[in-house]
């Protein structure tokens, strides 16, 4: 068992390293990017990686791929963070209330959750996005609308079990107000599962955003988002592999890092939680 834990934690360390790298790239993009990600140079279009001044090459308009990938990290993390926050708060509060107070509103809420979970996440987010419209704000909105249900279900389940514990019963017997029980005794005990779900959902949101932008919805060119860069790269696959390779690799490494951190958090905080 010790070896198992160590190995897991080693992977968690790798994950933390990858995430730190992506966060650093996002924060320092204006400092370390060699070029303006939006400015083209027609004379230097479609240069392969290794061209002086353009380590990862340039796209059709002569924009520097490295700079665009670095700035892409900002968009990806921004969308991922906003979505995780919105879904954790909305889904968490609804799950908490549904689990703690029960009654018919809780039942109705869980019915809605069941219906929504019976629909593929990516297709739901895509459909909502196609309807509410394009752009950064709307993609966050669409992903949140599609993603909050997971928290609601997990948190409600946890609350139902925490509610039965002795310390909650004891607090109630002492005449503690319900709001106080909810925030002092129940919430701290379901917080780990909220954190685990958030870390596991984070990469799903980032990849889903890229997929939706790739399909032509979501974030639009010329914004340097990884998904829209991949979308543009499709037409030049025969002549410029680097346009597809680097944004996708950045996306995969980001997802890998976040997944490893999420697995590690789960092992540490609550190995039994099934998400």
């Amino acid at each position, binding site marked *: 068992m010790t070896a198992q834990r160590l190995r897991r934690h080693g992977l968690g360390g790798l994950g933390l390293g990858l995430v730190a790298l992506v966060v650093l790239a996002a924060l320092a993009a204006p400092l370390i990017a060699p070029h303006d990600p939006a400015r083209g140079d027609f004379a230097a279009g479609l240069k392969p990686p290794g061209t002086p001044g353009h380590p990862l090459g340039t796209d059709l308009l002569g924009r520097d791929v490295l700079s665009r990938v670095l700035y892409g990290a900002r968009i990806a993390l921004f969308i991922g963070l906003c979505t995780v926050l919105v879904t954790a708060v909305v889904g968490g509060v609804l799950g908490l209330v549904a689990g703690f107070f029960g009654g018919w509103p809780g039942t109705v809420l869980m019915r809605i959750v069941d219906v929504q979970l019976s629909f593929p996440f*990516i297709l739901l987010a*895509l459909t909502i996005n196609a309807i509410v419209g394009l752009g950064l704000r709307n993609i966050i909105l669409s992903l949140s609308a599609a993603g909050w249900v997971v928290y609601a279900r997990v948190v409600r389940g946890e609350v139902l079990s925490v509610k039965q514990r002795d310390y909650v019963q004891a607090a109630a017997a002492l005449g503690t107000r319900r709001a106080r029980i909810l925030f002092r005794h129940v919430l701290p005990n379901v917080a780990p599962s909220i954190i685990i779900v958030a870390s596991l959902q984070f990469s799903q949101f980032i990849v889903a955003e890229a*997929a939706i932008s790739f399909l*032509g919805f979501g974030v639009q060119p010329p914004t340097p988002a990884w998904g829209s860069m991949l979308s543009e790269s499709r037409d030049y696959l*025969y002549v410029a592999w680097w346009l*597809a390779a680097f944004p996708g690799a950045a996306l995969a490494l980001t997802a890998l890092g976040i997944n490893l951190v999420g697995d590690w958090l789960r092992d540490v905080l609550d190995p039994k939680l099934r998400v």
Partner: protein
Amino acid sequence: MRAYLISRLGQTALVVFLSLTAVFFLMRLGGDPVLLFLPMDIQAKDVNEFRQRLGFNDPLAVQYGRFVANAARGDFGESLRYRRDALGLVLERLPATLSLAAWALLLAFSLAIPIGVISATKRGSIADYLGMGGAVLGQAVPGFWLGLMLIYLFSVRLGWLPTGGIGGPLHYIMPCVVLAAFYAARMARLTRSSVLDTLNEEYVLAARAKGLAEWVVIGKHTLKNAAIPIVTLAGLETGQLLGGAVITETIFAWPGLGRLTVQALANRDFPVVLAAVFLFSLTYTLINFGVDLLYGWLDPRTRVAGRA
């Protein structure tokens, strides 16, 4: 059993109905599809007549009532783009999606189960590290990027495989791999942890103590008991497989339901979107229904008497 079946079918109908209702209202919020399909130089009067003819001028409640009444009979209206019955159009594309999904599922299982079992039984070995490393990678690599890279390698550089479209067995290879990758990765990890849990059970110890051959212990005593969480996940994730088909089909120009849905969304072709939503939610809930029935077979304790 009968009451159970009826209540499950009722639930399925409810899920399909609520999904359709949600998408119907969302789509009506999203704007006017009519302008997209008319020439630029058209008169306002003609636009209005066109709207009138399609029923977009009626109050929303009336439109909804008409939609429900028609949908109940399987009529989702005519595709605004193809000028054909939307459900017919969607049904025509379903076999391509289902055959792709079925092959991908087969591929995923035939990779994931052996990898998971070997990783669990030979825990800490090189095979375990390789298998689980591959699974962790498979979960992180986005399908559409994997697709692009495979096209570049096998179609552009090597010229071995077609870039897309439907045809012979060669056309299936890349879409299946892309669709199966994520699914297989999750399945392999779950198989490993589920087998590991089961290996600690007393009946496995008893089977070993009886001196049964290792493959009997694993194949019969362990695997059947380890199968329950695997089957659960398989059912739950089928929806993600259908969702993944949307992206995979678009990359490989696969003429299935997913690609049609993306096109319909881009064209604001409401009837086709609604018909597609109908089929997706129906397929998915029916698959989960099948999974629930499978439980009863795998674990007699969960047979119908035991649940609501």
